[in-house]
Each structure stands twice: as C-alpha cells, then as structure tokens.
C-alpha cells in the first residue's frame, strides 16, 4: 500500500485559541451515532459554533473568510479526552490537513497521524503571532515544512516540534502503518505463541 510522502503541508489558516480543547468539543458525542465517518465535517466544533436554535455564533470557523482554511492553529493540550477518531476525522472532512498547537493529547496526536494529518507543536508566542497574521489576512499562505521542522509564512518562520517517529512516518509515506504491521506476520505469530493467554 503505497502512500503519499508528506514532506510539507501548505494552505490557509484558521485560529481557534484555547487550552484543553477536548474531543467532545471538537465533535459532540451525539453526532457520533453513525457507522461511517462520512458527513462528520459539518458537525466540527458544532456546539461552540451554533446557538441552541441552530443559528451561528461568532466563531473563526463560521467566518466565511476562513472557509478555505486547511491548517488549524490552537493552544495547549489540544484533543484531550475521549479517544474518538471522529474528532480528527471531522477536522479532516472539514478540509483541515494539519494542526499547529502548543501541545497535543497523545491519542489524538496518534489518530491524526494515521490520517496523514501532521500535528506540530510550537511556542505560544509564535502561534499567537501567526494567528494575528491569519486574522488580519485570511488568505495568508502558510507552509509547514515537515522535513525541516519549520513553519513559513510571509517573511516569517518559526521552529516546530514533532515526535521523530511521527515525522519519519510522514516523510517515508508510512503514516498509515497497516502495510508494515502486516509484513510482521511471522513475528506476530512467534510473539503470540510465547504468551499462554493468547491460546485461549
């Protein structure tokens, strides 16, 4: 299964500040009553984007200037809480292809990786500055250079961080691990046969 090598992601940004934004907020549980991930994009951040009568609240993602955004900018511990892959799937289906945050919750980070959606960590001031630039000019082109661990926009650039294993997986086109896991079949059987509880 040959996958695209992801060496960089470019696009317009949307800035959703806040810390500890959990996966319930990214996709409220009631929209998870589905047997496929199709259509989740329209429920992204639903409760912070809509009043209870369904009308829109002021929110960066309701701003039509950011309708084409594909890079999300946010704060600390993004994606904490539930392990639901519905959260990264909703982001992906809404057109996002990467997230820049101060830090990420672990399960969310891994779930994004298997969708080919890089999550890079950056310093608060760099994100705030970029966020201000995006708000001033929604058409601003941002590039996340996965290979160089840097973000570029306008005349500016800053350093970002990502776990080496995740970065390596993007660069080598192995961010969906299934093919490599299957290749280990004989090793799997050997490991399993040494574990008595696997025999039951």
């Amino acid at each position, binding site marked *: 299964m040959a996958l695209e090598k992801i060496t960089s992601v470019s696009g317009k940004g949307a800035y959703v500040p*806040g810390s500890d934004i*959990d996966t319930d907020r990214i996709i409220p549980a009631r929209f998870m009553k589905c047997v496929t991930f199709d259509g989740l994009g329209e429920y992204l951040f639903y409760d912070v984007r809509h009043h209870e009568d369904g009308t829109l609240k002021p929110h960066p993602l309701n701003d039509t200037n950011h309708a084409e955004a594909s890079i999300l900018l946010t704060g600390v511990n993004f994606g*904490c809480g539930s392990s*639901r892959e519905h959260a990264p799937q909703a982001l992906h289906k809404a057109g996002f292809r990467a997230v820049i945050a101060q830090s990420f919750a672990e399960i969310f980070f891994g779930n994004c990786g298997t969708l080919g959606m890089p999550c890079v960590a950056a310093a608060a001031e760099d994100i705030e500055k970029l966020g201000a630039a995006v708000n001033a000019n929604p058409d601003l082109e941002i590039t996340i250079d996965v290979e160089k661990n840097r973000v570029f926009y306008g005349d500016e650039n800053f350093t970002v961080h990502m776990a080496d294993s995740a970065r390596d997986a993007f660069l080598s086109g192995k961010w969906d691990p299934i093919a490599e896991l299957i290749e280990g079949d004989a090793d799997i059987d050997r490991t399993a046969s040494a574990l008595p509880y696997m025999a039951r």
Partner: protein
Amino acid sequence: MSQSLFEKVWNAHAVRQLSNGQTQLLIGTHLIHEVTSPQAFGMLRDLGLKVKFPSRTFATVDHIVPTQSQVEPFADPLAQEMINALRANCEEFGVTFFDIGSGHQGIVHVVGPEQGITQPGTTIACGDSHTATHGAFGAIALGIGTTQIRDLLATQTMALSKLKVRRINVEGELPPGVYAKDVVLHIIKLLGAKGGIGYAYEYGGSLFDNFSMEERMTVCNMSIEGGARCGYVNPDEKTFEYLKGRPYCPQGDEWDAAVERWKAIASDPGCHYDDVVDIRAEDIAPSVTWGISPDHGIFVTENIPDPAQESDPDKRESIEEALEYMKLPAGAPIAGTPVNVCFIGSCTNGRLSDFRETAKYLKGHHVAEGVKAIAVPGSQIVDQLCKNEGLDQIFRDAGFEWREAGCSMCLAMNPDKLIGDQLCASSSNRNFKGRQGSPTGRTILMSPVMVAAAAVTGVVSDAREVFHVGQTAAV
C-alpha cells in the same frame, strides 16, 4: 536487572521495531463497542482483510443503549442501526459479543474484569480512552482510535512509542467519607490534565495495597483525565482472589501456573521509574470539580477559585472561561451550589461496591424536591448483584430511578441527557463543556456518596455532614 511491570509487559509483547522507530506491539486482548468499531470493520472490508485472532476480540454494547428499557427496536433508529452493525460484524468475523440478551452486557470496562478477560501481565486495547481501567489488574491497557482498531483486528498489533513510567505513591489511610474517586481527582488536580502526557502511571503505596479491585479500577479509569496513556496497579493476592473462577480465567492447574506468572510480572523492588510522586492519603478530602476540565478540582470544603487572585494570565483566563460556562460565582464556597440532576454510574463508579457503599448512607433519606436522580448499574451482572442485595430498592425508596446497564449520562449518546443549563452532580469522569448532552449543561464530578448527598440536599454538600460519617472507616 530489576524492571517495572510496564517494562516486562512491553518486552513480552514487543513484536519488532518498525522503520520509524516505533514498536510493533502485540495487543493480546481487544475490546470493542458499537461506537468506534463499525468504521474499522468497514476499513477491514475495503482492504480485503480478515480478523487475525477472532478469539482475542470481545464486544459489548454500552454507549447508545437506552437505560430506561433495553427492549428493541430502540426509539432512536440511529442507535438501533449501530447495535445491528455490531451484531452483523461480530457474526461475520466470529467475534464474541456480550449482547443485550446474554445477561452479560454492560459498559466495556465493567464487562472485561467481571468476565475475567482482563488479566495481569496482558496488553489490552479498546477504542475508548477509559480502557486504562483494566490496568487495575496489572495490565497495560490503552485507549485507541478507529484506525488502530482496524490494525488490531487485522494483525492483533499496533504501532506505539514506548512510554515513560511515573510511580504515584499514596501512603496511609483515607479519612472516613473519602473514596477512591477523591484520590484520583486529587491526583489529577496536583499533576494537571496534561501532566501525564508520555507516561504510564503506576499507582502504589499502602493505600493501593489496601484498596479493593473496584477502588483500583476507579483510579486507573481516570488516568487519561490526567493525560496519562495508561495507569496500572501491580497485581497481588486481591487481584488473584477477584479473578479466580471467572469465566475467561484459567482453571485448575492452569490457574496455578497463571498465578505464578502474574506474581512475577509485578514491578521488581528498586526498579527504575522516570518520575516518582508521593502523596499522603490523610491530606485528601471529598473532592469536587468547579470547572470544565477534570483538573479543575477542589475539596468540597473549599471555595471556587477567583480569577482576580490568579497572577498567571493564562490560568486567569482559563478560570474565567470555566466560571462563565459553569455560571458559578468566583470565590464563593462550592458547597451550597444547587443541583438539578444526580447521576450515579459510568465506568468510573458503576460497580457493585459503589452502589453498596452509597446505599448504606442513602437508606432513610429522600431525594430533594425538584432533583432528578438516576442510578445506572455498569453491567447487567452489577444490576443483578445489586438486586440480590436489595440495593435497587433502597435507591428507589430514596427517590432515585434505578435504570438498566449502560454508559447513560456520562456522555449522552443515549436518551439520558441534561437539558439546557442543568447542573449535574455526577459520579462520571468528564466535566467538559457539553459532555452530558446539552451544549450548555454543567457537570460537577464527585464520588457516588457525594452525589447521594447532593441528591438528598439539592445542593453540593459535604457527604460527611449530611450522612454523619465519622466513626465508620471508609470501605
């Protein structure tokens, strides 16, 4: 060289190193439910793959099951579609399913232990972040996403980077009226909601040695709320006693051999930990949350934080956001906050001992006027055990509704939801914005006995005063 349980279990399950440096880790036990698995089965079909070890995946249905009546068809056609899909997938791929009619259905993290599927020294994964619960038995138990469920179905393995281990020692005894839930809320408050990122938590010390298996499960359950990928307690005689005779445990000579293996899997004395935290049990009091993150915790005797007193601007902003959502007055005592709904249940606190301990105090009291109170057993077996002891009747006599097994109001993927900005005293695990089903609904996390105290007084209360807890030691 001495090793931690984590190290030993990791090494025994490491299949090989992947090209990106991660480990291909064998996950011996895979648990699935209706919400996060259907898409994984879909991916499996799309790739033309089969389930590699069908006997190592176990399914139940919990999130979407209505608790007022489990009779099908469910009123919600989407919920019905989800249970139908799980049934069809289990049938097609040969996976054991603890279905509603089995008498063994329940919340996946209650079912695993009570069936004896959860065992020491094993690796367990489930598409649910509260999978850490199973760590109470000395297992490495991980919450995963749907793509990883596909990986497990197809290969029984997943790609993972090794975690660091933080030992959390809690020494001493809890004061009366203080419970395992208070311990974990206290730990999360001390270490923060993201303090555990990159870590497995090993819980130990005399408090955990003396804890029952169900108390250990309550603490391990909320490891993820502290950011830790998993949490565990070393197995001991209590673990073996709990497991003996359960359906999926080894029997006879095999049992004795298993116990020997399980004893050897515990962390060796003097093994290396990447970090150690020491906490005194005596310092812990009944705890409640005041905000929108599980680390927004205080003792029930304390005041709600005042952002004006906070010097760190980020923290001040976070307190302001939380208080605006919670509609709580800065600096005021949390005790006395009116509640609308009281919920006892969930994978954190929906087991026999939770209902037994609460019933002990609830007897002779009645739910305050205008308060809706529900008690939801974590499994059909818990329901039956409670009924055998007449606990359901004590709850009903006190004005609680006694429901059928499921996740219920913990996450509101079923009819149990808050309405508008109702405030819920909840024995569950998350107080996120909108978590309990209403976009403006409010949650205060606490122990089941504290929920009962809120139910009978109609306000957040110190259960020790309401129920005159004093001389009897906490169970």
